[in-house]
């Protein structure tokens, strides 16, 4: 698995994460190309089911980036998202999939560097965890 390139679904808040991404892009900062991006109006729109579905459909991890607590455009959307992330992690742990494959970060506005760092950090994290146990299971099945 030395060349494992994780598939990460990034659920990004329109107001902060995407603005940060723009800045990062304009500044030609480089970041790992592992993210499949979904734009959300607010991380508060993200449901447990979205997270589970992403995992079920083959993601190795889900990365959610929202505004800093207290700075949500919709006031407490990001707080809700944090709680849902916790719940989704619990549901994943229950079935033997590491809950930590789901991570949520805050970015304080359009800070491109921070955004790029998060992407790197997340990619490294999932790399260290390896492919989703779902894929491993499928692979073992193929081998068998």
């Amino acid at each position, binding site marked *: 698995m030395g060349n494992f390139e994780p598939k990460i679904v990034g659920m990004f808040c329109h107001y902060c994460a995407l603005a940060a991404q723009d800045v990062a892009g304009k500044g030609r900062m480089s970041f790992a190309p592992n993210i499949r991006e979904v734009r959300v109006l607010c991380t508060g729109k993200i*449901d*447990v*089911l979205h997270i*589970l*579905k992403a*995992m*079920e459909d083959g993601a190795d991890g889900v990365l959610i980036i929202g505004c800093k607590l207290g700075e949500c455009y919709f006031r407490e959307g990001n707080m809700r998202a944090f709680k849902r992330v916790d719940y989704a992690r619990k*549901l*994943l742990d*229950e*079935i*033997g*999939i590491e809950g930590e494959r789901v991570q949520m970060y805050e970015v304080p506005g359009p800070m491109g560097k921070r955004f790029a760092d998060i992407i790197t950090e997340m990619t490294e994290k999932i790399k260290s965890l390896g492919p989703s*146990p*779902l894929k491993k*299971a*499928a692979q*073992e*099945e193929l081998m068998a």
Partner: protein
Amino acid sequence: MIVGERKPLEEIRAMLDPYRKILILGCGECVSVCMAGGEKEVGILASQLRMLYKRQGREVEIGEVTLIRQCDREYIEPHLDKIYQADVVLSMACGVGVQFVGEVAGEEVIVLPALNTKFYGVNLEAGMWAERCAGCGDCVLDKTAGICPIARCAKRLLNGPCGGSQGGRCEINPEVECAWQLIHERLKARGQLELLEEIVPAKNWKPSLSGGPRKVIREDLRL
């Protein structure tokens, strides 16, 4: 509404073990509102189970259907085809729905409960539900300022707070409000404390579950 809570996954997994074709059946009424067994919860459980089976390398087919409600025959019948095609139906309704789907579908169909049905209650705030009525069959709310001592007093007392009531809390747990403290306060605010001076005689429990399973018949509505 009837408030339910999903059983632990491990318990659900164990009861589903013998089956290969599962239909998860949600209910659009109470359990949707209390977010235990509506369409979304069906989706979450289905997704969780699919991933689990995939991990275990097991071939299990999972269907998802959410009915308007499971306690009325006419909402179950249109889905009988799907029900018959499954090895097992995992109902996410309250205990009523679990039983009634089985009754309507016939004895060949195995219907299992995905929820623990908890109580008749209210949505206090987001993510919090609390019991309010125990369906005792002979309502006394007129005498207790609209606060139920059957469902909300840990000892179902009818003549005022026991000696364990302290600072508005029930003796069983400081998190639990003493129903009789609440009744007292409300009657006091209404200037009706004299209501508490009357002795309420032993309750007739015959209309409650103690009298055996109950039925309501309305001749005017029967066909």
